[in-house]
């Protein structure tokens, strides 16, 4: 009878209850959890230990790639393909390259940030199991949700529900796949 579920979810009235709940769940040993709130809560990222992700590294690599492409482009054009003497300056006049190198660094870093963010978040995502909880629509208005996912090694339907009940939520509900 045990149909696999996505997880269990608790609903809270205010942000501090959510932060406390997230902290308590981390302390209890749960790792696969996610929180949903209508607005960003800085403490929440700390409570969930969400600060480390791959995005900064991706952006750095994107920036370096962009800068290299920008510099190489100008080098090949002005030194190899169309060598033109401008006021007696050397063909490889690096100061003149810097602006475009800089702009290409910024452009590639920014594009990597946008698309890297979408990619790492798995967006666009037209369907998500949390939508099966009817009250979840409130998450974009005035309710705060904490979901413990069934992939967590400590996850046990009964016990996890009981644990969430101890955190004083408005409601604990099951999230179907």
């Amino acid at each position: 009878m045990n149909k696999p579920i996505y997880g269990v979810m608790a609903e809270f009235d205010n942000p501090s209850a959510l932060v406390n709940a997230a902290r308590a769940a981390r302390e209890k040993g749960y790792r696969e959890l996610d929180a949903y709130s209508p607005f960003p809560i800085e403490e929440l990222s700390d409570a969930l230990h969400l600060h480390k992700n791959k995005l900064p590294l991706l952006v750095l690599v994107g920036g370096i790639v962009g800068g290299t492409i920008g510099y190489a482009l100008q080098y090949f054009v002005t030194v190899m393909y169309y060598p033109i003497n401008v006021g007696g300056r050397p063909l490889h006049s690096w100061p003149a390259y810097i602006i475009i190198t800089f702009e290409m660094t910024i452009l590639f870093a920014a594009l990597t940030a946008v698309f890297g963010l979408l990619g790492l978040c798995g967006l666009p995502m037209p369907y998500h199991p949390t939508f099966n909880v009817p009250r979840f629509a409130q998450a974009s208005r005035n309710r705060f949700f904490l979901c413990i996912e069934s992939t967590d090694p400590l996850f046990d339907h009964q016990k996890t529900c009981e644990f969430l009940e101890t955190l004083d939520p408005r409601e604990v509900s099951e999230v179907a796949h």
Partner: protein
Amino acid sequence: MMANAVDYSITPQLRTDLRQWRIRALVAGVLGTAVSAAGFFAAGPTQFYRSYLWSYVFIIALTIGPLAWLMLQYVTGGAWGLVIRRACEAATRTLPLVLVMFLPIVIGINNLYPWPHAKLVAADELLRHKAPYLNVPFFLGRAAFYFAGWMFLAWWFNRWSLKEDLEGHDAVHTKMSRMAGPGLLFWGFSVTFMAVDWVLSVDPKWFSTIFGMLFMVSQCLTAMAFLITLMVLLSYQRPMSEVLTHRHLHDLGKFLLAMVMVWAYFSFSQFLIIWAGNLPEEIPWYLARLNHGWQYVGLLLVVGHFALPFALLLSRDLKRNFKLLASIAIFILLMRFVDLYWLITPSFRHDSFGVSFLDFTIPVALVGLWLAYFLMQLEKRPLMPLNAPHLEEVLEHGRD
């Protein structure tokens, strides 16, 4: 109705430490002054004034830079502003000392600048043309005007801040925030003209329109590096150990990174435009700085004033680490000395790179005396504004 759980006044322990720092700074300052005074006779007055000028520009940055941050935090608000506010106020209260320190430049004006020499001016069409602006009485009048403006702003913000401590922020906070905008405007103009008067006019025929902006950002960078170092030193003891957290430091570190980048941006913009134009009236300034050994100093600036701090400060963890961030801030302060030296001294030493012993003793003398006076001012008031609006939120911002 003081609901504050934390007492922000300086503890006896911290006061003892601050006094100790002050005595050390004073000893260094006095020794530096003595050696520099001997150097005045050993190396000659011209060398003395030349070393004095660039060292003094650093002191101005330590004093006027915090004034800009002080006004900026009234305009923008934010937790970072409240934690550095008292240090900024103390730095602006050193202005009387900085005014006294300006006197050697007035006395040495003939040794420093070509334009007060009537013979030189008479022989040169261009200098004759610039004489209505570049002459001694107008130069001194402008300097007096800058100092008057800065001292007025320093007086204004210190006065009302004290009143806020005593009576609460309802009545007085708008007085400070309303003055901050016009004050910043005055600061921008005065620093621009100051840079042109005191530094650029060493080479009266050379000009650069971004020169003033370069000085604005340099002052903000110097001030922020100094403030970060000070905050980290204060963070080991109450009351700041109760207040200051890695979040505040992270914000200050971001400013440091931003200023490092803007400095590089302005410096390179100036270089690129003059290099690309390659005009006979502009390029000699850079020819002096990119030849005869000076190019290595320039290279040191590219690496040490931009590339290295930039790469390190990108890291989020580093900006939250008290010791590491303070180390970088101190390194940047050293680089600020190198930058000022490279900016000013080649105008006097076209032919070869060189350093006088006065270029070491005068900075030690000025910074030592300034620090001693600054620490005396710092211990006069509690280290946090007691009745600032949003004080509780600022403390909350720091907590996890």
